């Protein structure tokens, strides 16, 4: 059957059972959008965002929330370069994405044509792989391969650049059934000898801690992790990306680890004699000073990406493979443990943890807001955050009981992620309550996506933590730059309620603590897009924290 390149793309997306794409048309991708217009019906939803960065973040949020591959479609040149932040973001956090970019016709490639850019060259270091389609006959196999690479092994973003003439050319459509790339064979089965010696180590350990990372969520290994914890009573800390891999209200949950982590988690990891690290890459925000990172502990590291093992710290027992698989096997080799003494030590440390302390601050502050969210939504809502102080407050205080219920930009820390990611999340999980926690800084980095959300009738609740500052930077200026507040005061902020209303949504402003809960309740009943502009104290900081280059057990702001 002869099809045009663009028809081949649509047929491939159909084969991949893609339900939604996010994007913006432009000259070099016009043939594809034109084909969308001819399909009756189009086999997937086509969401127009207001900026390409919005499209890629939305696709990212969709992928994180659903576990499926997110798809975005943009034009050449500026359309393509606007994807850069989003691709880097997905790459750092191992999110499966496929991005289609239009390209100038093959005859013009390399000539500095209008809206031409070497997007495969630009995205080389921020994609898992990328392609430029040079023949219409290659399109189907490239797309098949792209989706396969994006979702298998360690997931990641894949970009496909398609020149305009290739979109228009005719070719045979044959969707390949199998992929055969000699250089791509992710290993799923762990080495059995290593698994056995890991089990032995676990049974011998007196002070073991499990570090559960984003890989646990990606591998859908949450039940397997829980089984092991129930059997062995080993306490669990989460990395930031691992939030949701273990219920935050479980008595063996210690909190988040790292620079902005929680006191209990950092102390326990520092005192441990065995670390069982699952699907984490020992980012510097996790380890603090590498030389002082859990000095007494042997480390078992399980990860699907062999390059992560030994990259930052030396590992006693490395196991490469699929976490679900390996934890299942590991479970067969370990027996029950009590760890009473160790858990007693945990209780003593926890008593000093400022995060678990009650406070009677009457102002509308972060903890109060997060706790109100817990009270109303009982850990059932999906929390999407932007980047900044509010993100860390959310990580500390919101209850996250399920995987894929805490969606946030981890590795890249891309401000502007929150709103578009919440759009992708809501489209992926229409029956879930989606809460977007954002700051006044980050929110304005993709504020135009209000149109996308409201036009598509997405009932998202935005909690805007408005302190009139780039809060996280302001805090760093306060602590480490002698309080010289340069370029962090967000003078000229708009009236966010009016902004949201102008787009057709609902806005509330809250200044006082007692008004927050009733407003939140009201917002949750609206079943529409609602923004709650929360005016929080400008000076509120995120504590405790670890000074850069310090050991993670030396935390500022504990007392």
């Amino acid at each position: 059957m002869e099809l045009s390149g663009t028809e081949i793309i649509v047929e491939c997306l159909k084969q991949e059972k893609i339900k939604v794409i996010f994007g913006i048309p432009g000259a070099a991708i016009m043939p594809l959008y034109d084909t969308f217009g001819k399909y009756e019906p189009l086999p997937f939803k086509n969401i127009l965002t207001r900026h390409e960065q919005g499209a890629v973040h939305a696709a990212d949020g969709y992928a994180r929330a659903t576990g499926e591959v997110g798809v975005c479609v943009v034009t050449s040149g500026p359309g393509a370069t606007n994807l850069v932040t989003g691709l880097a973001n997905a790459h750092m956090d191992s999110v499966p994405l496929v991005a289609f970019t239009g390209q100038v016709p093959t005859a013009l490639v390399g000539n500095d044509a209008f809206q031409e850019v070497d997007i495969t060259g630009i995205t080389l270091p921020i994609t898992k792989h990328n392609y430029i389609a040079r023949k219409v006959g290659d399109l189907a196999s490239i797309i098949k391969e792209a989706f396969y690479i994006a979702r298998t092994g360690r997931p990641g973003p894949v970009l496909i650049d398609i020149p305009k003439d290739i979109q228009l050319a005719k070719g045979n459509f044959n969707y390949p059934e199998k992929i055969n790339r000699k250089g791509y064979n992710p290993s799923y089965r762990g080495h059995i000898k290593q698994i056995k010696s890991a089990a032995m180590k676990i049974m011998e350990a007196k002070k073991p801690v499990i570090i559960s990372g984003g890989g646990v969520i990606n591998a859908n290994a949450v039940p397997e992790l829980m089984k092991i914890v129930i059997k062995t009573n080993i306490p669990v800390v989460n990395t930031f990306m691992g939030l949701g891999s273990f219920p935050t209200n479980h008595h063996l949950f210690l909190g988040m680890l790292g620079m902005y982590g929680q006191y209990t988690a950092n102390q326990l990891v520092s005192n441990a004699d065995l670390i069982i690290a699952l699907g984490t890459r020992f980012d510097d925000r996790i380890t603090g000073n590498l030389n002082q990172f859990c000095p007494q502990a042997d480390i078992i590291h399980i990860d699907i990406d062999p390059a992560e093992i030994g990259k930052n710290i030396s590992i006693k027992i490395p196991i490469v493979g699929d976490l679900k698989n390996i934890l299942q096997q590991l479970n067969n080799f370990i027996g029950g443990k009590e760890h009473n003494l160790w858990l007693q030590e945990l209780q003593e440390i926890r008593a000093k943890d400022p995060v678990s302390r009650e406070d009677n601050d009457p102002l509308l502050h972060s903890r109060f807001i997060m706790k109100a969210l817990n009270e109303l939504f009982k850990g059932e809502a999906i929390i999407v955050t932007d980047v900044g102080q509010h993100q860390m407050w959310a990580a500390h205080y919101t209850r996250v009981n399920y995987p894929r219920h805490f969606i946030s930009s981890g590795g890249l820390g891309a401000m502007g992620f929150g709103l578009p990611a919440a759009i992708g999340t809501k489209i992926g999980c229409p029956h879930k309550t989606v809460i977007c926690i954002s700051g006044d800084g980050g929110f304005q980095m993709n504020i135009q996506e209000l149109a996308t959300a409201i036009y598509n009738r997405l009932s998202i609740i935005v909690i805007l933590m408005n302190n009139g500052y780039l809060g996280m930077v302001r805090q760093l200026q306060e602590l480490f730059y002698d309080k010289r507040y340069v370029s962090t005061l967000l003078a000229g902020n708009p009236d966010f309620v009016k902004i949201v209303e102008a787009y057709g949504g609902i806005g509330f402003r809250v200044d006082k603590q007692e008004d927050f809960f009733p407003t939140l309740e009201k917002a949750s009943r609206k079943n529409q897009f609602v923004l709650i502009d929360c005016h929080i104290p400008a000076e509120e900081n995120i504590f405790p924290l670890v000074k850069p280059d310090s050991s993670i057990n030396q935390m500022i702001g504990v007392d």
Partner: protein
Amino acid sequence: MKHTIAILVEDLPGVMARVAGLFTRRGFNIESIAVGHSEIPGISRMTIIVSGDEKVLEQIIKQLNKLIDVIRVRDIPAENIIERELVLVRVHVDSLPIRSEIIQLVEIFKAKVVFVERNTMTIEMSGDEEKVGGFLNLLKPFGIREIVRTGRIAITRSSKNGLKV
């Protein structure tokens, strides 16, 4: 420590950029990179000389293995290796005695004169790093006009250690 890394890659556009880019962006020190067709259609062999300790080497190999177009990567131990580099060198020749002196050197080093002008000779020479270095050092006093080197290529001594698909 210098290491010789042998790589098999799919012969696709941009592979060289992917491999070289990886070294730059991860801060690995690359000394020489050479690539050419292998005995298998569609697959090329690369030889990369890098310096770094064992830890760096391990990361380089792991990161290279992550590239989709890379099929195999191996660090070849020095004792197990045959290395060659091809060099073309144009040397200044201003008198007949000097010409014969250079021709003597060419014979000793089993090099080859490939082009002669009134004032220069162009010589082709191949060998391991030491031999190439020694030869160029001896030519230096005559006045070297131009040097073009291929970078090193390497093959294992024994077929049982060879890098296969």
